């Protein structure tokens, strides 16, 4: 079968894939992106700007900008809504894909270099005792981001009213050996606190309680931002035991109060769970097709950790390697783009 020849194929059009495509296409290299979702941007494009009158460096605008830049590049082809069926890893790659929701016939591509930017899968907290998917006003942070982006304000799903009292619960499916996720998801403290601050900025009477184990550093300005945050957000070092729904969709949250040293209960209108970053569920089958191993958590290894793979033209970037912020994903994509350009050059496949 004659496949159209493409120099670089990128699997996953989230922020890392888009950033790499933008960098590589600049050099006149033809890039094709394969994306499972109907549109590009990945999870990163679900985050709204968190500016409080001033920029707080959340990075959401960067993801959006990469998407616009890539859309303008003529030598980037985006195939959205497709699923990879097979990859043959010979000299270069033969990739076959099918369309997920249309009758279009399956297609194929030939690639000199393959970049995996398959991102992550948010942990599904249905098994946690927090009533996720049972109580309408229990959301994950990404659900809350979707609502914020759609409506411009954060409201309770049950009645569309702005919540008076919000609880954020951190580390839901992170730092949790019992469910086999013994890693810190790294970005949730920053993402949740920025969300909390934005909600309060727009509606100052909102009472926010933040349940956490440890607050992880985010941003260059962390100390200042965190000091301000502590004055506005009630910080409670506890992981809540469970949530029950009382009358009028109120959520009754049970936790051990470290100040009073006793178990207590408190009502909230909206509970936002910082669901952890888990590996993409497609990782095992992709790794299998490509003949590479995943790390213990199920993420990919960085491409330079195995010299054999580097020569074969396989590269990885972004949250496919583990939890990363938007800015870190862009950094990681920049490094992959440099490695890919050098790989193409050393194999006489591109001028660089």
């Amino acid at each position, binding site marked *: 079968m004659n496949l159209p020849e493409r120099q670089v194929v990128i699997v996953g059009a989230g922020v890392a894939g888009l950033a790499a495509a933008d960098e590589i296409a600049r050099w006149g290299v033809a890039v094709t992106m394969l994306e499972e979702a109907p549109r590009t941007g990945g999870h990163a494009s679900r985050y709204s*700007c968190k500016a409080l009158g*001033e920029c*707080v460096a959340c*990075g959401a*605008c*960067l993801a959006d900008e990469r998407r616009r830049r890539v859309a303008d590049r003529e030598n980037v082809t985006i195939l959205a809504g497709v699923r990879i069926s097979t990859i043959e890893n010979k000299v270069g790659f033969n990739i076959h894909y099918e369309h997920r929701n249309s009758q279009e016939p399956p297609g194929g591509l030939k690639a000199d270099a393959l970049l995996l930017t398959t991102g992550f899968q948010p942990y599904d907290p249905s098994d946690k005792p927090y009533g996720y998917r049972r109580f309408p006003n229990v959301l994950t942070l990404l659900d809350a981001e979707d609502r914020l982006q759609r409506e411009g304000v954060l409201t309770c799903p049950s009645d569309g009213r702005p919540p008076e009292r919000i609880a954020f619960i951190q580390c839901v499916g992170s730092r949790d050996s019992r469910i086999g996720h*013994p*890693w810190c998801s790294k970005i949730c403290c920053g993402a949740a606190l920025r969300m909390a601050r934005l909600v309060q900025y727009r509606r100052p009477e909102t009472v926010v309680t933040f349940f956490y184990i440890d607050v992880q*550093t985010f941003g260059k300005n962390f100390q200042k931002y965190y000091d301000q945050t502590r004055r506005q957000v009630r910080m409670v070092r506890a992981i809540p035991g469970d949530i029950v729904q009382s009358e009028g969709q109120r959520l009754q949250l049970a936790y051990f109060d470290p100040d009073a040293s006793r178990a207590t209960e408190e009502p909230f209108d909206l509970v936002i769970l910082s669901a952890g970053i888990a590996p993409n569920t497609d990782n095992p089958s992709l790794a299998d097709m490509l003949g590479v191993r995943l790390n213990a958590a199920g993420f990919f290894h960085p491409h330079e950790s195995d010299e054999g793979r580097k020569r074969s033209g396989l590269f990885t970037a972004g949250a496919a390697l583990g*939890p990363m912020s938007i800015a870190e994903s862009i950094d990681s994509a920049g490094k992959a783009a440099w490695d890919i350009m050098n790989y193409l050059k050393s194999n006489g496949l591109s001028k660089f």
Partner: protein
Amino acid sequence: MPTQYHTLVFGNGECARSLAMGLSGRGLKVAMAVAAPVADKLEPPAGHGDTITSWAGTHLIACQGQPGDFQLTVEQDGRRMVQRAGSIVVAEQPQQIPNFAVYGLSSSGRVLSISQAEAILLDGKAASTSGGAIHILFLNDWNEHCHPVTAARMLRLCKTVQQLPNRHTVYMAGHLKVSVEGMEACCQAAKAAGTMFFKFDRQRPQVQMLPDGRVQASCWDDTTRITFTMTFDYVVVDEKITPNSTLDHLSRVLRLDRDLHGFVQSDNVQRLSNATNRRGIFAAGGARAVMSPEEQLSDAAHAALKVSEFLAGLDKGELPRVEIDTARCARCLTCYRLCPHGAIEMLPRMTVMPQACQSCGLCMAGCPNRAIQVHDDQLTSALQQMMTEEAPRPMNGPFIPRLVAFCCRRSALPARDMAVSAGHRLPDGLVVVEGLCGGRFSVTHMLSALEAGADGVLVLTCHPGNCHSECGPTNASRRVDTAAQALALADIGAERLHFGTLAANMGAEFARTVEQFAQRIASLGPVMSEQTMRRS
């Protein structure tokens, strides 16, 4: 004279060397300069002797020229020389400052920084005062926040030491910073090996140095609710990672913005990953932020890509030309001061360096003598078109205000596009006038929009701290204030002007801002009522 080097790299650490080797691998000529005097002759990285030159003990005196051809006056061993380089990268290694004072301690043979402890505690020479087991206390992230990169070193050392025979470790932290890969597992392993972890929120432990050199810690434990006292043979404190001290001088001579810690790159996401406020000058690794050694190497690769892009001319699209009318210029230096990109030089006439200019127009909007022109046809033609067009004013229908929104092309304009594609309906009389930066709109622009028949004027920029030109929103808001004062004096009403900030992905907010403003102007009515128009 041809450019002698493609790139001049300041620094000699892992990041700087990796960057230089990467560029040299592409056949580029690289010079590495180290500000500190170095006793030995600095050797270029192995195998790169042909393309990498190293200078030790150099002192940068001046930097002239422009991107693609910088002329750097450098002093070495008392001799001055001018070196030419197409691009510059600042990649000086950061410095580690031990946090002894933060915990009320001072350095001693038993009070160690993490760097000292890594060298001492693992070599088997550590000794207990009692002859028995060695007790070691780690102090991390209280009183002052600790970067996860340093916390990771503390946690790794604690785990390794705990796993040695006859060692007992206690780890006291404000927050366990475990966001570096593998650190949660490291904590679990240390705990399993016997490390005791304590965390403190409000009540922090009292630590004091005993006469025999040991250190005593008295703590209140939140969980057990008891106070206890422990004595340790060694204490390990964390470190603060700070910018290399040479960055003070380098950033001054190179006119580079710095963040609040002093790293060479303002805390502005638009500068990510390796850009500075000046085209052709880049920041890499520990010179721009706190990073782990692996992150610094990865950053070297990214910076090498950015330098290559710049040298190949792929970093800059077509931009409108900016010119200074020398006949009008009074050489007041306002433009020199306003330019965020270091693109205006006195040679001796005020000159816009075309390669450095980003066409933001901040100089134009601020020039008191209106001597600067941005050859940006869209803005002038949009205003002219407004002047000639009839206002969409139905004779008997409701008043539809004519609104002009001056929009920054990188924030408010994409927000408008997003609003439109999301199906928001924008007011009928809205005219959008775009400019490359919000700071490019002058008081004259705002007033001439009103003169051309607008009933209200909006100036919409990005959020402060997110501007490609650093101070676009601040300048724009100041100009709106000035224009509003003029309107108030002319009895037209300052409320006909509005300044707002938006991000590119705030479509819904764009629609809301414009709609609210349209309602405000509708209630004010036209600038000139029909009676006044008829009278005039």
